[in-house]
C-alpha cells in the first residue's frame, strides 16, 4: 500500500540565543500508510509535537525529506496547492485554544466550508454543519451549532475539532494528544469515534500521545514509535511493543503504569529511572541519549554515536548487538 | 540587559529629537514675545519694541534649525544643556533647583497613594460582601473622572480659602531659614500637603482597584490555604502572605507611575505656584525659552525611561520566569 506521508531522515532544529541549537527532531524515518494508523509516544518535551508539525506541513524540516504521496514537500520549486494542504488536517491537544473563541460552532465549521466553495448560502452551510455534528455524535446538532466554544465541555470541543478536521475530506488526520485534556470518562468515546472514522471513511491517523493506555486502545494492530529526545528509539506493532518492550526506556515507562489491580497500585512508585528529569535538549548527552537515566547503562553507552534504530530498537544493550 | 539599556538610550534620543523639532515649530519666537510685552508696557511701535526686545535678551533668532540641533547635541555630550534664554543662567542650574521639589511632591504622592490605596484594596478584597467594596469602586471611578488639577482647585478652595488651614501657594515661606531645621521642614511639609493630595487622591482609587483585583486572585491560591492550615495567625497571613504577594504585581507599575508623574505635573504645579519642573516648563512654554523647555523634556523623558527600566528590573527579580 502506498504511504500517505513518508519522512526520510528528518531533522528539525531551532536556533536559540547565544548560538545554542535545540535539536527537537533527529533523523526520524516514518511512513504512514493510506488509511492506516501510526502512534507516536513519548514524554513531553521529546519532540513528538515538533514532529507533528512536520507531519502537518506547517514546519519545514531542517534536513531530510517529506513526501505527501508522490509530492516532495519543501523541495526546490515546491508550492503549496490547496488540494495538498487539505490532505492533512489536525486535532489539537488544547481544545480551548484550537477553536476560535469568538465564533459559534456554526461559524467555525461553516466558514471554511463556504470559503472553499463546498456549500453555497447560509442554508446549505447550516445543513452541512448539522450533518457533520451528527457525524461526530453531537446531537441535537442545532443546539450545538449555536454554542460558543467556551460553552462546551472539553470532550464536546474535541468532537467539534474532529468534525472540522474531517469535513474537508483529508487523507490523514494528525491527532496531537486529542484526549489528554478531556475527562477520563469520555476519552474512550472520542477515541472510539476516531477509530470509526478510520474504519468507515478510510482516513489515516497519526496519533501522538504520552499515554500508553490510550495508545494501546487506539493504535492496536498498527505500528507505533517511541520517541526519546527527538529520536525514534523503538518501533513496532502497538500490542507487541507494549507487551514485550525491548528498549529500557519503554520498559521504564511501562513499569510506571499502575497495574489494573488497585491493591497492587500502591507498590508502584515513580518511573524506575536514575533521574526524573529529561536532559536539556540543547545539550544532549554524548552517546546514547538515554544513558544518564538508564538503570542498565554501561560504559559503551556513554561513548560514541547514539545507537541506530535497527530491527525496531535503538539500544546498545539489546541482545544481538 | 545591555540590549534593553541600548534601546532605552535610543528611545531617549529619538524623543529628544522629536521634541526639539516640535518645540521650534511653535509660532511666535522669543523676540516677538518680548517685543509684544514691551509694546504693551511702553506704548511704542512694534519695530522699536522688536529692536529693544532683541537687545533685552541678546538673542539671534536667525540661526538654522540644523545648526541649532547639532550645537545642542555637541553641548549635551559635554554635559552642557545650554543657557536659558529668559533667565540667562545655565539650564542645568534651573533643573537642579526644580527637580527636588517635583521629586518631593511626586514621590510623596505616589507612595502615599500606593500605601493607602493598597490598604483599601486589601480591605476591599477581604470584605467583598460589605459596603466597602462598592464604595471603593465608586471612589475609584469618580476619581478617574476628576483630573488632578480640578482636585487641586477644590482643595485650594476648601483648605486654603475656606478653612485657612494650609498655605495656598509656594514651597516655603521666606520667613524660615532654609536648611536642616524643624521650622523649615515643617513649613515645607505644610506647603507640600495640597499639591501632594491633588496627585494622591485620584491615584489612590486606581491603586485600590488594582490591589483588590490582585488580592482577590491571591486569595484563591493554594498556599494561603496551606498557611491557614499550618495554623498561622490570621494577621500574619494577612500581611506576610496576602498583602505582600498581592502587592508584588503592582510594584513595577509603581515605578512606571513615578516616571509618568514626573512629566504630568504642569497644571497642578501651576495652580499651587510650586517651583518644580512643571512650573518651569509652563513658564518656558509661555516665554518660548527653547533650551529650558528642551532640558525639562529631556529630564522627564529620562525619568520615564529610567523608572520603566527600574520597573522591569523589579519585575524580573520578582518573577523568576523572566530572569533568564
Amino acid at each position, binding site marked *: 500500500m502506498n504511504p500517505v506521508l513518508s519522512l526520510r531522515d528528518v531533522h528539525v532544529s531551532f536556533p536559540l540565543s547565544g548560538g545554542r541549537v535545540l535539536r527537537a527532531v533527529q533523523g526520524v524515518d516514518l511512513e504512514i500508510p493510506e488509511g492506516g494508523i501510526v502512534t507516536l509516544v513519548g514524554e513531553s518535551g521529546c519532540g513528538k509535537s515538533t514532529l507533528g508539525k512536520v507531519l502537518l506541513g506547517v514546519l519545514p524540516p531542517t534536513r531530510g525529506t517529506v513526501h505527501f504521496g508522490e509530492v516532495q514537500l519543501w523541495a526546490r520549486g515546491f508550492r503549496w496547492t490547496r488540494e495538498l494542504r487539505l490532505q492533512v488536517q489536525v486535532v489539537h491537544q488544547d481544545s480551548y485554544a484550537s477553536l476560535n473563541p469568538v465564533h459559534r460552532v456554526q461559524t467555525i465549521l461553516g466558514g471554511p466550508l463556504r470559503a472553499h466553495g463546498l456549500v453555497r448560502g447560509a442554508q446549505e452551510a447550516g445543513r452541512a454543519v448539522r450533518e457533520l455534528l451528527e457525524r461526530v455524535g453531537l446531537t441535537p446538532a442545532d443546539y450545538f451549532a449555536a454554542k460558543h466554544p467556551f460553552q462546551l465541555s472539553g470532550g464536546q470541543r474535541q468532537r467539534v475539532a474532529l468534525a472540522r478536521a474531517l469535513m474537508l475530506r483529508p487523507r490523514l488526520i494528525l491527532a496531537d494528544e486529542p484526549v489528554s485534556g478531556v475527562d477520563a470518562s469520555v476519552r474512550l468515546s472520542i477515541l472510539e469515534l476516531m477509530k470509526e472514522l478510520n474504519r468507515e471513511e478510510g482516513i489515516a491517523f497519526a496519533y501522538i500521545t504520552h499515554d500508553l493506555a490510550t495508545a494501546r486502545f487506539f493504535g492496536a494492530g498498527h505500528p507505533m514509535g517511541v520517541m526519546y529526545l527527538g529520536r525514534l528509539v523503538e518501533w513496532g506493532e502497538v500490542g507487541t511493543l507494549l507487551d514485550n518492550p525491548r528498549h529500557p526506556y519503554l520498559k521504564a515507562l511501562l513499569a510506571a503504569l499502575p497495574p489494573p489491580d488497585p491493591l497492587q497500585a500502591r507498590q508502584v512508585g515513580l518511573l524506575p529511572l536514575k533521574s526524573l528529569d529529561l536532559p536539556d535538549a540543547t545539550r544532549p548527552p554524548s552517546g546514547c541519549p538515554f544513558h544518564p537515566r538508564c538503570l542498565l547503562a554501561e560504559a559503551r553507552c556513554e561513548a560514541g554515536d547514539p545507537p541506530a534504530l535497527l530491527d525496531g530498537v535503538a539500544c546498545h544493550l539489546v541482545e544481538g548487538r | 540587559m545591555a540590549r534593553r539599556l541600548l534601546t532605552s538610550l535610543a528611545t531617549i534620543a529619538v524623543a529628544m529629537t522629536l521634541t526639539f523639532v516640535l518645540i521650534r515649530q511653535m509660532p511666535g519666537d522669543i523676540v516677538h514675545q518680548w517685543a509684544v510685552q514691551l509694546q504693551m508696557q511702553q506704548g511704542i511701535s512694534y519695530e522699536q519694541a522688536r529692536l529693544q526686545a532683541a537687545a533685552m535678551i*541678546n538673542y539671534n533668532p536667525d540661526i538654522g534649525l540644523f545648526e541649532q540641533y547639532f550645537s545642542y547635541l555637541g553641548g549635551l555630550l559635554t554635559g552642557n544643556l545650554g543657557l*536659558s534664554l529668559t533667565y540667562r543662567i545655565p539650564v542645568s542650574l534651573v533643573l537642579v533647583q526644580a527637580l527636588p521639589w517635583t521629586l518631593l511632591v511626586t514621590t510623596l504622592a505616589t507612595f502615599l497613594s500606593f500605601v493607602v490605596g493598597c490598604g483599601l484594596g486589601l480591605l476591599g478584597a477581604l470584605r467583598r460582601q460589605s459596603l466597602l467594596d462598592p464604595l471603593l469602586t465608586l471612589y475609584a471611578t469618580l476619581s478617574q473622572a476628576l483630573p488632578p488639577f480640578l482636585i487641586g482647585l477644590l482643595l485650594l478652595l476648601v483648605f486654603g480659602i475656606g478653612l485657612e488651614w*494650609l498655605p495656598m501657594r509656594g514651597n516655603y515661606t521666606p520667613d524660615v531659614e532654609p536648611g536642616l531645621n524643624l521650622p523649615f521642614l*515643617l513649613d515645607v*511639609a505644610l506647603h507640600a500637603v495640597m499639591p501632594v493630595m491633588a496627585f494622591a487622591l485620584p491615584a489612590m482609587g486606581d491603586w485600590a482597584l488594582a490591589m483588590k483585583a490582585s488580592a482577590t486572585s491571591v486569595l484563591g491560591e493554594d498556599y494561603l490555604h496551606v498557611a491557614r492550615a499550618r495554623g498561622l495567625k490570621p494577621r500574619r497571613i494577612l500581611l506576610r502572605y496576602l498583602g505582600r504577594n498581592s502587592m508584588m504585581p503592582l510594584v513595577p507599575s509603581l515605578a512606571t507611575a513615578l516616571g509618568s508623574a514626573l512629566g504630568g505635573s504642569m497644571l497642578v504645579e501651576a495652580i499651587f505656584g510650586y517651583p518644580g519642573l512643571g512650573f518651569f516648563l509652563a513658564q518656558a512654554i509661555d516665554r518660548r525659552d527653547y533650551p529650558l523647555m528642551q532640558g525639562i523634556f529631556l529630564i522627564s523623558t529620562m525619568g520615564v525611561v529610567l523608572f520603566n527600566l527600574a520597573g522591569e528590573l523589579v519585575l524580573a527579580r520578582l518573577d523568576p520566569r523572566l530572569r533568564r
Partner: protein
Amino acid sequence: MRTARPTLLPLRAGLLRVAGLAWLVGFLLLLVGCTSRPPPLGVFCGAGEWDIPPAYHGNPWAPGGVGAAAPYVYEPLFVHVASTGQYLPRLGTSFTEGPDGRELRVSLRPGSSWHDGTPLTSRDVQCTFYLGALRGMPVWSYLDSVECPDPATVLFRFRRPSPLGRVDALTEPITSPVHLFGQHLPAILELGGAQVAGGGGDAQPLDPELAARLRGVREVLFRFQPARPVGTGPYRIGRVTSAEMSLEAFPQHPETDRLAVRRVRLLRWGSNEVIWSYLLAGQLDAAAPACPPDVASEILRRRPTVRMLTPSDLSDLGVLLNTRRPPFDDLRVRQALARLLDRDLVRRVASPFSETFGGLQVGMGRQIARRWLPAETLASLEPYELDPERASRELEGAGFARDSRGRWFGPEGPVRLELLAPEGQSDLVLLAETVAAQLEAFGMETEIRVLKRDLYSARLSDGDFDLAASFGGQLGRYGDPTLAMERFFMPGGQLQMASGLPGVLDGLDVGALSAGLRLVRDPLAKKETLGRLASLAHQELPFLACFEKRLTLFLNDGTRVQGWPAEEDPLWTALPAGAETIYATMLATGRVRPAEAR
C-alpha cells in the same frame, strides 16, 4: 506534589507597617495640628511677579529684572500724578526746566545712599540712563545727554523737547549705582546714548560691527547677577521664594523715620483668580485685579476690613475691527456694528464697575475728551446710538441681505466672524463672549478664540482675525491722549497695525501727524491736532470702545496696615503708571501705617 512557595519581597513586614503608620500619623498631624498663621500686624502684603529662584537676581537690566520688588527697592526722581500734573519728590527734591525745554536740571535729595552704604551721586543717575540706552529705554528718543554738573545735580539735555520726554526722564527709577555698573559706562558714553538706544526716529542705524560690540557689552551686563538688587528705596529684599518675597526697612534711608511699616511681604500674582483667592483669604492689603462683581462682593462680605475703590484706568476696552478684509473693510459695516451692539450690556457682563462709553468713539473717555479735544469737534460728531433697525438698513445698503432664518449674507456668502481674546484677561474674555452672543443673535455667526497672549498679539499684528477684544485708547503714565492717538494711527502703533487702517485718511497724513504729536509743546496746536485725529477715529471706527475701564482696587484697611487715602485722592490717578509705585509712595511717606491692635 511540590507546594508552591510564595516568593517574598526582601522587605520586613514590620518595617512596612511602621513606615505606613508613620506616613499616616505625619500627615494627620500636619493637617490638624499646623495651620498657617497670617503675617503679624504692621506687615504690608502686596502682590506681583518675579522670576523665581534660582533665576532671581539683582540686576535690573538682565532679563527678568528684579520683578515686583522694584517699586519698593528703587526710587524714581519724582512720582507723576497725571490728573493734577503734580510731581511728588522722591530721589529728586526739585527741578527747573530751561525756557525752550531743552534743559532739565534736577537736585537730588541729600543723605541718600545705596543699600550697600555707598552714597548716591548724580553719576549714579547718569549711569542708570546710559545703561538704559543699552536696552533701548524710550526716553532716548528725546534725550541728548545726561550730565553731572555736581554730585547733587543732574542735567538732562534734550534733542527734541517733549512733555512726554520730561515725564519719562523724571519718573524713571534710579537703579544702577556707578560703583557696581560703571564698567559698562565708557563704551556707551563714547557712542552717545541715543545712538546706542537705536530708536528715536532720526537715529542712524548702527553699523554691524558696533552692533556686535554692543551685543557683547550687553552679554557681560546680563551676566552680572548680584544675588539681591541694590537700590536706594525704603526697603531691602530679605528672601525670595517661588510664591513670596519678603522685604525689610532700609535703616539708612533718609526718611526712614517716616517709614511706619517696617516689613513688606509680596505674594506671587500668577493670574487674576490667584489674587481673588488671596483677597478672599484676607492675605493682601492692596491689589487691583480685574474682578467680577460677584467675586468682589464675596470678598467684601468675607473681609469686613476690605474697601473697594474703583479709580479710572484712563483706558477703554472694546472690539478692534480688521479693516483689511471683509466684512469690516467696508466702513458702512463698521458703522452698522457700532449701532447694533448694546455696548452697555457688554459692560454690565464684563466689567460692571466700569463706566459706559458714550456714542463718541474718539479713542478716549468723555471726561478726558472734554479736557483735551476742542469743543466744536465734539459737537460736530454724530454719536453712535444703539439702533439695530438702522444698522440693518445700513447693512442692506452695503449689499448685505438676510435669509429666512435671519442669517446675514454678504457679497462673499454668509457672514462668519472670528473674534479673538487674550487668555488670562477675564474682562476681555467676557467682553468677547457678550459681543459674540449679540452678533449671533443678530444673525452673524461668530467664533470666539481665547488665545495665549503672544499668539493673540501675533495674530493681531498679522491682521489674521475679524474682530478682537482689546484695549483701545490708553493714556498710560503720561495721562495724555497722545499715546491713544499713536496707538490708533501711527505706523507700527498697536491698533494701527492690527486694524490695518491706512496712513492717509481724508487726504490727511494721520501717520505723520500722530507720530509728531509727542513733540508738540503748544497746548492749542496740540488740541487742534488731537481734535482732527479724534474725529477721524470716530468716523473710521477701527476700534469700537464698549466701556471706560475702572479698576477694582481692594484695600485692606485695619488688619495689618491702615491709612489708605479715600477714592477722591488724586494720587490714585497715577494708578495706570503702576499701582505698586503708589503703594510704595504711600508707605514711604508714612501715610500707610501699622494697624492698631484690636
